[in-house]
């Protein structure tokens, strides 16, 4: 990520690192990972302490030698961490004993650690190596600078990698290309849609529809990454994606997307029912051809994205029943309304990245509207929960038991609306992460089973001839 030189000149390195780490906590596009990061906050403080300790050692070792080196050391930003967390870290450790460059006034992207190592004696190199690895695991922003030194050049040359696909890496690459965690969440919402449908539970149809939905989601995510390579390179959150790092070629990514999308939609159309297949194809189209380009053109992308998120539970329902009923639309409505507090809160703390990357998000261009919409839709969730028993989707207990969590998220949304600061945005975002699973779970437990006996119309489309 690009940063001005001056912004690095902070005397309180540790504080900045810690701030950055906490700032980076909400920067995740998958809820599971964000939950884990939530629990990792204490270790991040440990990280800062280690870092400060390391600096102290630096100063102590320097005191005995030249004073001017120490002065330079103070200016040299120690914040910078490698942006590639894997092999460049090992390279740093290897390089430390051999580099003998003179102290540099400028830095290289995220190479301040080995830079400092050049100034000091080799006995600290080992400690330095371990700390640089520790520090390197945090998501720090690299600093931008002009390279002017041979040693730096040589060091960067060693980071060049051959563009050869290692077959052993492919599963991991594919998982990241398909945003496997996000896909898992999408599949979960589709499963909830299926489970809420008032028909007998058919495990085969259930599995097939989930598989088809998952494949469609993989395809959509891959195409999204294929479109966004230069933008992803410039944002901290996304710069380690496979296409950005060149682990596979664009053609390979598109082939993978086709290999997932075509069988996925075909599976849904032929094995489940044409309506579900149509919805799957529609969702892929909306996500790749509407949402992705719109992100850079207009704030309406958020509404399109909310529809994209709402379709999987509808697909789950139609996979079960074969027709689009009000109950399906209600479940879709839950997801639709949920998206706004979720995404608006997330994007609130990423405004700088979005602005620099040219993304037009409500949080950047219309901040007041952003908060208003989040609040409005959080309150809307309460209304939708009350609508559920009216549509015979759940019993009357559902609005009652879901009221506490709905009120809580509305309260946080209200705080976000009034304060509009980073803290309230973060709280709202994290609340949204557990709120949705809880809501769906409560709906499932309050499902209106009595409707199953009344509803005696088996839908022929959904069941192929056994």
């Amino acid at each position, binding site marked *: *990520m*690009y*940063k*001005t030189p*001056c*912004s690095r000149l*902070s*005397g*309180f390195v540790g504080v900045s690192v810690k701030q950055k780490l906490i700032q980076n906590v909400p920067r995740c596009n998958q809820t599971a990972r964000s939950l884990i990061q939530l629990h990792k906050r204490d270790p991040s403080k440990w990280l800062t302490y280690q870092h400060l300790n390391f600096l102290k050692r630096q100063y102590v070792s320097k005191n005995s030698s030249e004073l001017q080196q120490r002065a330079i050391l103070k200016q040299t930003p120690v914040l910078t961490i490698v*942006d*590639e967390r894997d092999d*460049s870290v090992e390279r740093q450790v290897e390089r430390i004993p051999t580099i003998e460059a003179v102290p540099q006034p400028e830095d*290289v*992207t995220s190479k301040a650690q080995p830079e400092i190592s050049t100034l000091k004696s080799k006995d600290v190199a080992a400690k330095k190596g371990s700390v640089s690895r520790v520090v390197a695991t945090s998501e720090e922003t*690299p*600093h*931008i*600078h*002009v*390279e002017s030194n041979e040693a730096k*050049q040589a060091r*960067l*040359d060693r*980071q*060049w*990698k*051959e*563009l*050869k*696909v290692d077959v052993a890496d492919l599963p991991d690459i594919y998982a990241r290309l398909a945003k496997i965690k996000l896909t898992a969440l999408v599949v979960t919402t589709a499963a909830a849609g299926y489970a809420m449908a008032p028909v007998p539970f058919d495990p085969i149809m259930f599995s097939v529809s989930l598989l088809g939905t998952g494949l469609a989601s993989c395809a959509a995510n891959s195409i999204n990454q*294929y*479109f966004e*390579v*230069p933008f992803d*390179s*410039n944002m901290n959150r996304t*710069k380690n994606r496979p296409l950005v*790092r*060149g682990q*596979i*070629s*664009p*053609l*390979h990514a*598109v082939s993978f997307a086709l290999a997932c999308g075509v069988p996925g939609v075909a599976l849904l159309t032929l094995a489940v029912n044409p309506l579900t297949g149509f919805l799957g194809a529609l969702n892929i189209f909306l996500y790749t051809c509407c949402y992705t*380009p719109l992100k*850079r*053109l207009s704030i309406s992308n958020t509404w399109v994205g909310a529809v994209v998120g709402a379709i999987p539970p509808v697909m789950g329902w139609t996979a079960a029943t074969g027709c689009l009923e009000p109950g399906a639309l209600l479940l879709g409505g839950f997801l639709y309304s949920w998206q706004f507090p979720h995404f608006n809160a997330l994007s609130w703390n990423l*405004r*700088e990245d979005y*602005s*620099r990357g*040219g993304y*037009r998000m409500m949080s*950047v*261009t219309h*901040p007041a509207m952003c908060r208003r919409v989040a609040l409005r839709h959080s309150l809307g969730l309460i209304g939708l929960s009350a609508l559920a028993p009216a549509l015979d989707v759940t019993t009357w207990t559902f609005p009652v038991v879901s009221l506490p969590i709905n009120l809580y998220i509305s309260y946080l949304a209200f705080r976000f609306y009034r304060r*509009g*600061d*980073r803290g309230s945005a973060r709280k709202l975002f994290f609340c949204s992460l557990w709120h949705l699973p809880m809501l769906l779970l409560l709906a499932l437990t309050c499902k209106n089973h009595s409707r199953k006996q009344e509803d005696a119309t088996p839908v022929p489309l959904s069941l192929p001839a056994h």
Partner: protein
Amino acid sequence: MAAGAAAATWRSFFFFLPRPPLLPPRLSAACSRRSSSGAAAPKDKTPKRSTFRPAASSTHDWIGPPNPLSNLRPIVYHVPENESELEKRLRHLRQETEDWNHEFWTKQNLTFSKEKEAFIISQLQAKGLTLRDEDGRRRALNSEEMAKFYKSFLDKNRTRHANYNKEWYRRNFTITLLMARVALNSMWRTITERSSSKKNT
């Protein structure tokens, strides 16, 4: 031998840039020519490409660390021996797109940072504060104040971003189509060469 050719065909389809699979390409002269031509075409900014040269026996492209200004990773393209017209066109297009992308993002990042600086300074001056406080630390504006700058930056560059978007999508599609054609061509070549070698034996 057939298995080897089959494996090579599969490899050529799946790997980054398909090469004529039966011939081990000699790289040193071609690649160093490529790298130096790349390094010889710097803009008025710092030359984006390093003087990196892949090993003489390399058969693939090389990708480097992110450029400090544009955050994009440079690629050194491998020029195979029997490069077809199509492959050459693809390589040139990719190189040109890379340069164009780099130029756009460098300008974008530099402009953003400069304007952000100017904005911070002007805001602080309007408040009557110095850039640094008593401890020598830089003052920072809060997120609400910065949001004004972010919004104005986006609004000012709206058309420019939209044009870049269109152009990027167009180039991306063209490159991918060309890559597909090159892959199919080299697969076809492998198959025909294999069948002709079978005929000869």
